[in-house]
C-alpha cells in the first residue's frame, strides 16, 4: 500500500508535467486547428528563461585573488555577482537563490511575445494548410529554436536549483502513520504539483467565466459561426497562442529545478505529450488533463519492481501500451469529439 501511495505521488507529479504541456497543445489545436510540433520547444524556452535570468542575476565582476591559482597556475580570478555587491551578500544571495520563482515574472512577457511573433509571423499562414504541412513547419521551427539554444547555451544540462527553502523532502508516511522514510516527497515537487493545479484551474476558469473565454470556447466548437457573428476571432486566437506559449513557458520554468534544462528537453516531452493529447481525445481540454495524470500515474506504477519482475521492460513501453488499448477501445480517446482530425 505504501508503495502504491508513493507511486501515486510520483505519478501526480509526472502527470502534471504531461498535463500542462498537453493542455497548451490542446488549446492551440482546439482554437487554431494547428498541430504545433514546436510546443515542446516552447516548454524548453521557458526553462531557459529560468537559466537566462539566473545568468543575468549572477553577472559578475572579477577580482584577482593572489593567494589562489587557477588551472594554468595564474592568479585566480574570483567572480562576485553585481547583485551581491549592490544589495550586500545577504540580500543579493537571496535574490540569486530565488532566481527560479523570479523567472516566472520574466518568462511570462517573454513567452507571450514569442508566442505572438510565432503566430503572426508563421503559424497564421498555415491555418488553411494540411495538418502534415503544419507538422512539418512547426517541427522545422522546433529544430531551429533548439539549435539556437544549443548554440548559445551548449548541449549539456545546466543546473538550475530551486531556492534553498525547498531543498529536501517531506515525510508523508509519518503523517499517515507509516515509519519514517517510507513515503517521502521532495518539497519542490509538491510546489510543482500545486502550481500545475493552479495553472490548469486558472485556464479552465478563464475559459469558463470570462466573456473572452466564452468566445474562444465557441470558436473551438465552431469557428466559422463565431466569425460570422462579427467577432474578431483572429485577434483572440493570437492571444490564445500567446497564452498557450506562456503556459508552456512557466511550466518549463518550474520544471527547471526538477531536471537540469538542456536544449533537447522539448523533444523528449513532445512525443509523450502528443500521445497524451491524443489519448485524451483531440481538442478536449479536460481529456488532455485527465490523460496526462492517468499516464503519469500508470507510468509510475509500471516502474515498481514487482511489476517489472512480472513483465520485464514494461516501464519502457507502458505509455504506448496504454495508448493502444485506449485508442482501440475508445475510438476518439477518452473525451475526443467526432470528426476532429479523423481524416
Amino acid at each position, binding site marked *: 500500500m505504501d508503495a502504491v501511495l508513493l507511486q501515486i505521488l510520483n505519478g501526480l507529479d509526472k502527470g502534471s508535467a504531461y498535463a500542462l504541456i498537453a493542455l497548451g497543445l490542446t488549446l492551440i*489545436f*482546439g482554437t487554431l*486547428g494547428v*498541430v504545433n510540433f514546436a510546443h515542446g520547444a516552447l516548454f524548453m524556452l521557458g526553462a531557459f528563461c529560468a537559466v537566462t535570468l539566473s545568468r543575468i542575476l549572477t553577472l559578475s565582476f572579477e577580482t584577482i585573488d593572489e593567494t589562489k591559482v587557477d588551472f594554468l597556475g595564474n592568479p585566480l580570478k574570483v567572480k562576485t555577482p553585481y547583485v551581491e555587491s549592490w544589495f550586500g551578500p545577504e540580500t543579493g544571495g537571496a535574490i540569486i537563490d530565488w532566481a527560479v520563482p523570479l523567472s516566472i515574472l520574466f518568462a511570462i512577457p517573454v513567452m507571450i511575445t514569442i508566442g505572438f511573433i510565432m503566430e503572426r509571423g*508563421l503559424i497564421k*499562414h498555415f*491555418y*488553411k*494548410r*494540411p*495538418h*502534415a*504541412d503544419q*507538422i*512539418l*513547419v512547426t*517541427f*522545422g*521551427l*522546433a*529544430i*531551429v529554436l533548439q*539549435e*539556437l539554444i544549443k*548554440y548559445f547555451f551548449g548541449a549539456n544540462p545546466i543546473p538550475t536549483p530551486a531556492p534553498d527553502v525547498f531543498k529536501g523532502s517531506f515525510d508523508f508516511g509519518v503523517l499517515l502513520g507509516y515509519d519514517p522514510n517510507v513515503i517521502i516527497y521532495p518539497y519542490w515537487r509538491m510546489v510543482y504539483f500545486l502550481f500545475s493545479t493552479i495553472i490548469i484551474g486558472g485556464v479552465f476558469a478563464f475559459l469558463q467565466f470570462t466573456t473572452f473565454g466564452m468566445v474562444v470556447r465557441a470558436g*473551438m*466548437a*465552431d*469557428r466559422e459561426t463565431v466569425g460570422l457573428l462579427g467577432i474578431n476571432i483572429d485577434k483572440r486566437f493570437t492571444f490564445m497562442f500567446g497564452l498557450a506559449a506562456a503556459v508552456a513557458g512557466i511550466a518549463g520554468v518550474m520544471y527547471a529545478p526538477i531536471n537540469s534544462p538542456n536544449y533537447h528537453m522539448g523533444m523528449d516531452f513532445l*512525443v509523450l505529450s*502528443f*500521445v497524451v493529447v*491524443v*489519448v485524451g481525445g*483531440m*481538442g478536449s481540454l479536460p481529456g488532455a488533463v485527465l490523460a496526462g495524470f492517468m499516464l503519469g500515474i500508470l507510468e509510475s506504477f509500471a516502474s515498481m519492481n514487482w511489476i517489472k519482475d512480472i513483465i*520485464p*521492460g514494461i516501464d*519502457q*513501453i507502458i*505509455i*504506448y*501500451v496504454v*495508448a*493502444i488499448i485506449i*485508442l*482501440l477501445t475508445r*475510438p*476518439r*480517446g477518452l473525451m475526443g469529439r467526432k*470528426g*476532429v*482530425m*479523423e*481524416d
Partner: protein
Amino acid sequence: MLGISKKDMTILLVVIVLALCAPFILNPFPTGSAMAQFNAGYPDLMQRFVIFGIFAIGFNILFGLTGYLSFGHAAFLGVGSYSAVWMFKLLSMNVVPAILLSMIVAGLFSVLIGYVSLRRSGIYFSILTLAFAQMSFNLAYSVLTPITNGETGLQLTLSDKRYLGQSVTESGSIPVTNFFGLEMRSTYDLAVGGWNFQFNAGYYLCAIIMIVAFYVSMRIFRSPFGLMLRAVKSNQQRLNYTGINPKPYTLAAFVISGIYAGLAGGLMASMDPLAGAERMQWTASGEVVLMTILGGAGTLIGPVLGAGFIKYFENIFSKINDTVLHQWFAFMPDGLEDVVVFIVHPFVGKGWHLTLGILFMLVVTFLPGGLVEGGQRIAKLFKREKAPAVPPSDPEHHPKETPHVAE
C-alpha cells in the same frame, strides 16, 4: 511499352539515367578542389540515397495516395535490417535470401500493425503507429538485446555459424556480403583528369532495385488499385457508398509500404551488415515523413528527391568544420575571412540541424507541393518565355491543397 504511358516512360528513363550515372552526377567537382567537400559520389552515401529513396517511395504509396500518416514506418525498416543480419549470421553472406527474408518479415509485421492501427483514422491512426514503433524501439534497445544486440546494434562476429557458407575467411576475418560471389563492397575507381569516380557493386545493386521499386510504384499509381487509394484519401464516405470497402485497400497499401521499408532495411544491412535499434526510433519514422513531404507527397519522384535532400545534408553539411571554412574563404583578406567564417559557422558542421530546420520551414512555407513544385515552377518560368503555360493535365503532379482545418 512496359505498360506505362509515354510521359511516365520519360520519367522512368530520367530516373534510370540519374541512378546509373549517379557516380558522375554526384561528383561534379575535381577531387583536389575546395568544392570537393560537396561531392556526394562515394559509395556509402550513394547507397543511402537510393535506399532511403526506396523507403520514401514505399511510404508515399501509403501516405501520398491514401493520406494515412504513419509515424511508425521505421519499425519495418528496422525489422527488415534485423532479419537480414540474422540471415547473414545463420545462413550465408549472399544478399538475396537476406533481402527476401527482410521483405517477408517486414510484410508480416506490417500486416499485424496495419490491421490494428487501421481500425482508426487520422491522428488516432498516426499515434497508434507511433506507439507500436516506439515500443519496438524501446524493447529492441533493452529487453530484446539477445535478438537485437541492443545499444550496439546487431553485428556479425567471427563465431557466427553460417550453414551455407564459412564462418571465417582464410585470412581470419568475417566474410563480406555478396551477390552470388560479387562482393557488395568492391569498387572500381575511374580517374579522369582531376576527377575520381567510384563505381560500387553494392550501389548498383541498390540502384537497380530502386529502379524496379520505382517502376512498381509507378504501376501502382496508375492502376485501378492506386485510383482507389486516392479515392480513400479524397472521400471515404463516397467510396463506401459506391460499393467499395476501403479497409482492404488501405491495409494493402500499408503492407506494400511496409514491404518497401523492409526491403530498404534489408538493403541497408546488405551494404553494411549492422542493424541498430535507432533505425526504429520515432525520429527515423519522422525522417521518412519529412522526406516525402519535402519532396512532394503523392508525386512519383518527390520522395526520392526528398530522401536525397535530407541525406545529403546529414552527410555533407555535418562534415564541414571551421578548418574547411577557412580553406574556402582563404582568398579573402584575413579580417573579412574571419567574419565570414564566423557568420557561416553556426550553420554547418555541428549546426547542420539548424540549416535543415530553416530549410524545412522555407520549403513548406513557399513550396506547399514540396521540391517537385519548386521544379515545376522553374520549368514553368522557362516555358513561359517560349509559349504560354499549358494547363497541367497530370493530377498526381499537382497535389492539391486540401484544407483540413479541424472544425
